[in-house]
């Protein structure tokens, strides 16, 4: 059945080297580069980072439109932060001053960097979600968490929890749509009227959704138990993600890029 949109629906099944990477490596590198973005502090280091992300986007073969879609929901937060930076920071040369509002060269420079930082981080995480299937993400996370097992952290249970949660996102999205349609047919107007009325209109949606989520959980637990599921046993997986030379290369590349950023930063 076609689904109009689901949260992780940004995944685009395509055939690029980034798609083929080991998911654990991809998640690790995504976090690594996001942290690296914070180390950039000069025009040159930001430019290098941008160039690198543009190359990544190109390598992932994903349409640029998807990146705008990732940025759009956050656009107000970004604009708000930038406005505050521009209007209220001090230091550097004063350009304009009225009351508590200071516009300084330092503020503008900071605002530009902040904007770049937002765009870079969103783009990096979008590359991850576009090129990685939700199930790959969950198994990638469980691989990365494996060392925590030594600290008695229930890694297997945790990763199963993530994959079950991800597995039910499309199911519950579908059910939400059906229930919304059913209640619309009974005269509910979602998202109109005053605040109280709007909140109230979600009760006929949320209660059925909870009821059905509990039913799913109940059925699933019975199904799992009847198939011999035991908590925290080491499980084998249907998909085993290999480690290719490109994954090794990408780790070296990460070190190389970090060196460039550290050389270029002030």
């Amino acid at each position, binding site marked *: 059945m*076609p689904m109009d949109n689901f949260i992780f629906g940004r995944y685009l099944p395509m055939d690029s080297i980034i798609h083929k990477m080991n998911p654990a490596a991809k998640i690790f590198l995504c976090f690594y580069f996001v942290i690296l973005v914070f180390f950039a502090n000069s025009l040159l280091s930001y430019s290098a980072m941008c160039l690198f992300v543009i190359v990544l986007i190109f390598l992932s073969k994903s349409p640029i439109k998807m990146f705008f879609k990732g940025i759009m929901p956050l656009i107000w937060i970004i604009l708000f932060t930038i406005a505050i930076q521009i209007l209220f920071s001090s230091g550097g040369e004063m350009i304009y001053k009225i009351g508590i509002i200071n516009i300084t060269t330092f503020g503008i420079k900071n605002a530009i960097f902040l904007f770049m930082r937002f765009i870079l981080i969103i783009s990096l995480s979008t590359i991850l979600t576009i090129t990685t299937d939700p199930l790959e993400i969950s198994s990638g996370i469980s691989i990365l968490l494996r060392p925590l097992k030594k600290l008695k952290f229930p890694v297997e249970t945790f990763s199963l929890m993530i994959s079950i949660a991800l597995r039910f996102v499309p199911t519950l999205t579908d*059910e939400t749509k*059906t*229930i919304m349609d*059913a*209640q619309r047919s*009974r005269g509910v107007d979602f998202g109109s009227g005053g605040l109280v009325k709007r909140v109230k209109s979600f009760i*006929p949606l949320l*209660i*059925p959704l909870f009821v059905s989520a509990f039913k799913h959980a109940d059925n699933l637990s019975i199904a799992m138990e009847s198939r011999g599921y035991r908590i925290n046993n080491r499980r084998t997986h249907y998909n085993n993600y290999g480690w290719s030379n490109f994954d090794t290369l990408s780790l070296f590349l990460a070190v190389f890029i970090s060196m460039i950023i550290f050389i270029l930063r002030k």
Partner: protein
Amino acid sequence: MDNSVLFKNVIYKYQMNTPFQHTALNNINLKIKAGSFVSIVGKTGSGKSTLVKHINALLKPNSGTINVGNFTINSKTNNKNLKKLRRKVGMVFQFPEQQLFANTVKEDIAFGPLNFGYEENKIPNIVEHVSKIVGIDKDLLNKSPFELSGGQQRRVAIADVLATNPEILILDEPTAGLDPEGKKFIMNLINDLNKNQDITIILVSHQMDDVAKYSDEVIVMQDGNLVKQCYPDELFANTNLLKKYDLQMPVSVKINLMLNERGFKLNDLHLDEDDLINAIINKLKEC
């Protein structure tokens, strides 16, 4: 007033302008007469549910228009002002018991009428009336809908929709997952609403026995196209058509065929089991 449903060149695509784009309805033209009992059949994913969701504007066409009585729905239809249309067109979804939410059965049934602005002093009468129609006992009205059995929940959900007094009733697989008795009750109820209260019935179903027995007209969907609209006997008399559209043969048609093979020829095709039995008895009397 004439409440016929008219589709003109309706095209609907899921996930427009994405790599997942998928044509669900491909240039649909059809007319459903007011007061008729029309069944929509076809394989899973052929566009049946998408088609009926256009009738009360839950989905809007990418192009083309739909007329329901004096309402017109097209791609530019505003989401506001749809209440009148949705009061007129009742929709019973697949597994409608999923929509139950209120504290008591009574409140759940009253929910629709209250949304559509019925006067509050009339509501108790409406609740009593529709619960009688669907066969829900009075003492169940004050119970939580979640305490009821599956079959009873289904009846309450249908009462929910009937409570708004629709002139057109759309049912998407209303008997799925019910026991034979429950199925029979629901189908008789729907037929009764059509014959005695003059409600237009649009039934989406995989149950060819029901389709053959009750409907005035059958619409066959295949891969988003309307491939046939005809009388049920025209469709079910033609085994090649059934094969072509991947539809199951109703039991009554099967019996007809088997009798024919053994040289026991009936004059007409009888789609209702009682008619069929009578015809066989009459034929035997003749012999």
